[in-house]
Structure formats: structure tokens, C-alpha cells
């Protein structure tokens, strides 16, 4: 109970601080604030994928409904955050480099995550039979996870040699004023807690629904 209200105050403070406490950055001016939302949301999208894959692996070992449901829950949450991250990232890119989309490695990575989530959830809706659905979805989740490091870590090396400029890491380019860093880290923490809260809530709701279904 208490920690949730604490979260409310924390994030409210982050929002206010982002607007009033932290300074503006060059070139971005008022758009600087996007950093406090875009990057934490992208981080949560990645975290959600990790959690989803862990539960997928667990499912293949335990064949327990609970593991499959939690993999799906995390995927849905991850999709939501991936959409928000991609959209806010496009706005940030427009403000920073003048174009909404450039297919630079970082942009491609978050979009790729979006595609994987979409594919995963589409697959789930296309398979009949609870066990089969869980099994096939888990396998897809894992194979997708295996290919992600290639795009995030290895492929960018190809592009660094070709294109400078917009493809450098946004944070690398932006030297963060200490106040900006404080707000940024606080936002990161807040979003992470928010993710776990929504995840936990969804898991409880799923359990309740299941009990209802089993009773009737």
C-alpha cells in the first residue's frame, strides 16, 4: 500500500523536476524532457522481453500454466512500452536530428522488439489448444531472443564504419548535466517499479480469472 503511494509521489516529482529542476539541453531545448520518458520506456520494453523469455524457458521445463501466462503478460506489457518508446523515440529523433526515422541501429532495435512482440502475440492468437499455444509461443520467444543480440551488439559495428552522426548513441552525444542525470535515473527507477507493479497485478488478475473458470 505504502510503496505504491510512494511511487506516485516519486514519479510526480520526476515529472515536475524534469520540467522545472533540470536544465534544458542545447539544440533540444524544451524537447529535452523526452529523454526522461523515452529511454526508461525503452529499457522497460527490453526488461519485459527478458522476463518473458525467462518464463518461456521455464514453461518448457515445468509445463505449468502459470509460467506461460506470465510470459504472455510480460509480452503484452512489453508491447505497450515498445510502442510508447518507438513513438517517443521518433519525436526525439525529429527534434535531435531532423528526421522521424532513420533506421539507425538503435531505432531499428526498438522497432525490432516491437515486431517480435507483435509476432509473438499474433502467434498466440493463431494457435488452438492451451498447451500447444504455450509450447509453440515459448519456442518462438526463445529463438527470437537468441537473435536479438546480433542486432543490438554485432550489426551496429557494420554501420559505425559507414555512417557517423545520427547513429551515435544519443546519450553519448548529450553530455548530461548532473541534474538531468538525477532526473533520468530517478525516472528509470520509477518506470521499473511501475512495470513490476503492473506485471504483478496482471498476474493476480489472471490467477483470479482462472480460479473462476475452474469453479464454473
Amino acid at each position, binding site marked *: 500500500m505504502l510503496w505504491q503511494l510512494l511511487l506516485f509521489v516519486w514519479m510526480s516529482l520526476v515529472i515536475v523536476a524534469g*520540467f522545472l529542476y533540470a*536544465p534544458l539541453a542545447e539544440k533540444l531545448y*524544451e524537447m529535452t524532457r523526452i529523454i526522461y520518458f523515452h529511454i526508461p520506456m525503452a529499457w522497460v520494453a527490453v526488461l519485459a522481453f527478458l522476463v518473458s523469455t525467462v518464463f518461456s524457458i521455464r514453461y518448457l521445463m515445468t509445463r505449468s500454466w502459470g509460467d506461460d501466462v506470465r510470459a504472455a503478460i510480460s509480452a503484452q506489457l512489453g508491447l505497450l512500452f515498445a510502442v510508447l518508446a518507438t513513438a517517443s523515440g521518433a519525436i526525439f529523433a525529429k527534434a535531435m536530428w531532423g528526421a522521424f526515422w532513420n533506421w539507425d541501429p538503435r531505432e531499428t532495435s526498438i522497432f525490432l522488439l516491437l515486431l517480435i512482440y507483435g509476432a509473438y502475440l499474433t502467434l498466440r492468437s493463431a494457435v488452438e489448444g492451451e498447451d500447444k499455444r504455450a509450447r509453440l509461443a515459448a519456442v518462438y520467444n526463445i529463438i527470437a531472443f537468441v537473435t536479438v543480440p546480433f542486432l543490438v551488439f554485432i550489426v551496429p559495428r557494420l554501420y559505425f564504419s559507414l555512417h557517423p552522426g545520427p547513429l551515435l548513441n544519443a546519450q553519448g552525444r548529450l553530455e548530461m548535466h548532473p541534474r538531468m542525470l538525477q532526473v533520468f535515473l530517478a525516472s528509470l527507477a520509477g518506470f521499473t517499479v511501475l512495470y513490476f507493479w503492473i506485471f504483478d497485478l496482471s498476474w*493476480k488478475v489472471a490467477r*483470479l480469472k482462472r480460479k473462476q473458470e475452474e469453479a464454473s
Partner: protein
Amino acid sequence: MNTMLQDLSRTAGQRVIADFVVMDVILLVWAGVFFYLFRLDRKVRALLKKDKAG
């Protein structure tokens, strides 16, 4: 660093107002999201307690 803070004070009055408006909208959205989750959390807790007792 000082030049950055100067930017804020140099902006026209209108821009600063828009700033506050955006901040307030975001705060409202956050409040909305939070209280939705909070109410849901309370309901779920109550239902789970009932389950454990009954």
C-alpha cells in the same frame, strides 16, 4: 552549464506557459493511470483475501 539555465529565462513568456501546460497534462495522465491501477490493486487484494478465507 550556466548558458543552459539562461536559455530558460530567455524564452518568451508564451513558451514558458506552454511548458507548464504540458507538465500539467502529463501529471494528470500519470495521476489517472496511477489511480486506475491503485483501485484495481485494492479490488484484487480484496478478492484474493476472500479466496484465502473462504
